[in-house]
């Protein structure tokens, strides 16, 4: 297995670099429980002493690992810090314990810029100080709780202790740009549309954007805190609301983590139905955002045609799964909606008619020079920028970054299917649209295969609480890209820790980069072509 070798190389290099002997005191390895649902790569877990944290970052950077996520947990005397990394579709989990009374550790951000906001989030929630972090401004915290208070510490109450209205966060230290003719445009938190809240601070000269700084955290709902103490079933309901547009993908990732942790084998039929749901979600969201991009460049024809197609898919969802956005259909141990032959037929027919429509529409879009004029060379994210920021999903794939979990680390049922991954290198709005247009067609192919191979049998395995505290990770390719869910559940069946890492953590910083040099009026179309979730990063 070349994958296994990769991580061995990591260990060897770490040992060479630091002179530390890799013994039980400094680093030891143990595998997370092998996946019941045939996760092909068991995840290698390394416990590191805190002084090995920075060498680990340096070595991982040298070996070109990709930063996946960072999260912590309060174990009262210690704070447990986890970092997940990926190389060639194989995942590595680094873990260290930090003294709660002196919570200092080195930062991964100097070596992995993608870690920037997640480390700041971890600081705001746990009070872990990342000593050499280049940007120590708060991220998730506004004024709902005080500095030096950390919501994910055990001694922080779930209920609010602050009386009265939370004041606006007026004193956030934004970057300022000075110069002749330079002006500032503050936008938000409430935007001029039916859209989530967040603040954008532009500095512009004439029409050109010189700098954009995002300030998010407005829809922080304490998801990680209120997840503590929930049952498995309740957790999945909450996971389905991390980001409403990715309800299937987040619920599946959290379920997979639970099922991996408890070695629960779920029926093949349920896996197929989950994948069909996930592809439906991908199609509907790609149509919706494609329509949004058309709308933002005043291409009304394209906008309404795609809004119409999206509505047809939502109606099909309501007919087949009983919910337009397919909420609460995935449960621990399987799914709660079966597919009968009539519904399978309905899906097949919709695919056939939609394919015909898209053949017409894609041709019209490609032939429309005024449409292309607005989106070609607009909002370019270079291949280098995408790699550095660890950008995932269609945003990464439009910038030459061919990573798709369904292809690179395929989980069941995708491991039985052949998956085409469309990739473009231009990194502009047009490239992102072309990736998404192709991904819709790929989703059609996948759904058709999944329906044809739909195995008979039950759709649920009864959920059983574990005998001991256990943990695992679930990885799912949602429509925005790779979603990671970490779950730790105790022997009473109650959740001790839930952390979902949405791909939006990496696409938001990409938006700050790709807007440089574009004109202010093109910001909406650039933003829509990326479409990060606010809710999923504000948590």
């Amino acid at each position, binding site marked *: 297995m070349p994958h296994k070798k990769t991580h061995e190389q990591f260990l060897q290099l770490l040992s060479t670099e630091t002179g530390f002997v890799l013994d039980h005191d400094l680093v030891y390895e143990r595998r997370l429980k092998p996946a019941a649902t045939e996760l092909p790569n068991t995840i290698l877990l390394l416990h590191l002493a805190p002084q090995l944290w920075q060498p680990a970052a340096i070595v991982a950077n040298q070996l070109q690992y990709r930063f996946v996520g960072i999260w912590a947990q309060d174990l009262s005397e210690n704070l447990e810090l986890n970092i997940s990394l990926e190389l060639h579709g194989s995942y590595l989990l680094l873990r260290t314990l930090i003294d709660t009374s002196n919570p200092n550790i080195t930062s991964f951000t100097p070596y992995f810029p993608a870690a920037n906001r997640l480390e700041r989030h971890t600081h705001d929630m746990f009070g872990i100080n990342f000593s050499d972090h280049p940007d120590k401004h708060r991220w998730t915290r506004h004024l709902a709780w005080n500095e030096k208070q950390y919501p994910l510490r055990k001694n922080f109450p779930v*209920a609010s202790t602050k009386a009265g209205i939370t004041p606006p966060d007026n004193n956030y230290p934004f970057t300022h740009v000075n110069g002749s003719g330079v002006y500032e445009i503050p936008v938000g938190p*409430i935007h001029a*549309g039916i859209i989530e809240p967040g603040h954008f601070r532009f500095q512009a000269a004439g029409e050109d954007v010189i700098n954009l700084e995002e300030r998010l955290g407005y829809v*922080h*709902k*304490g998801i990680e805190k209120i997840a503590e103490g929930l049952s498995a079933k309740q957790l999945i309901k909450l996971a389905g609301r991390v980001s409403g547009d990715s309800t299937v993908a987040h619920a599946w990732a959290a379920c997979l983590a639970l099922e991996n942790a408890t070695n629960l084998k779920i029926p093949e039929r349920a896996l197929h139905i989950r994948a069909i749901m996930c592809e439906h979600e991908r199609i509907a969201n790609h149509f919706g955002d494609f329509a949004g991009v058309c709308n933002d460049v005043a291409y009304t024809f394209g906008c309404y045609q795609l809004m119409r197609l999206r509505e047809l898919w939502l109606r099909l969802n309501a007919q087949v799964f009983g919910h337009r*956005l397919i909420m609460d259909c995935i449960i621990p141990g399987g799914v709660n909606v079966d597919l009968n032959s009539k519904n399978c037929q309905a899906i097949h027919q919709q695919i056939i008619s939609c394919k015909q429509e898209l053949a*017409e529409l894609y041709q019209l879009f490609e032939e429309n020079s005024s449409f292309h004029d607005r989106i070609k060379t607009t909002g370019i994210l270079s291949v280098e920028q995408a790699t550095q920021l660890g950008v995932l999903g269609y945003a990464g794939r439009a910038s030459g970054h061919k990573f798709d979990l369904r292809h690179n680390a395929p989980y069941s049922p995708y491991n039985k299917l052949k998956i085409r991954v469309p990739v473009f290198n231009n990194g502009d709005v047009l490239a992102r649209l072309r990736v998404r247009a192709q991904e819709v067609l790929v989703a059609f192919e996948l759904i058709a295969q999944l329906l044809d191979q739909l195995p008979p049998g039950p759709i649920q395995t009864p959920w059983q609480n574990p005998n001991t505290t256990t943990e695992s990770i679930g990885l799912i390719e949602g429509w925005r890209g790779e979603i990671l869910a970490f779950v730790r559940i105790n022997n009473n069946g109650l959740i001790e820790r839930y952390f979902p890492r949405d791909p939006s953590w990496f696409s938001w910083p990409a938006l700050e980069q790709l807007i440089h040099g574009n004109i202010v009026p093109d910001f909406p179309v650039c933003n829509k072509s990326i479409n990060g979730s606010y809710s999923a990063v504000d948590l």
Partner: protein
Amino acid sequence: MLKTLYKIFKTGIVTEPLPQNKTTAFERLGDNCRKIIDARFAGSLAIRQIDAGSCNGCELEIHALNNPFYDIERFGVHFVASPRHADLLLVTGPVSRHMESALITTYNATPDPKLVLAVGDCGACGGEFGCSYACAGAIANVIPVDGIITGCPPTPINLLQGILELLEQKN
């Protein structure tokens, strides 16, 4: 251009009449509300939508009101970019504490007389998120609310019905 026109004509008009099976009085309700909007709002009801902390599920369905199947503008209802232009605030929740002040500022910026509709289970009661250090829960905990549309998320039909019912009730 000819191909575009051909596609437009081939698609035809997909806008649907209001469903008659929801309540027996639904069509009458729709007619009445159109009359209310004509009489009370000079033919157009302006809505400002505010996401005060939602998971974005409600926004997707509110967005769908503008798609060609529902086409809410035919009832004289349209979405505006500024609270200054709004007759009605359509607010999704739960109200995150970080959005509390922005919601109040927007409410105050909306000229009187104004209507507020709390949308979704979270807007109605805090939903899955409830009240916590991060959430103030229901919209009514933060600003006065005239009506509630439940659902997670409410469908476009639920939304349309909720708006129409509020107008009739206030008439």
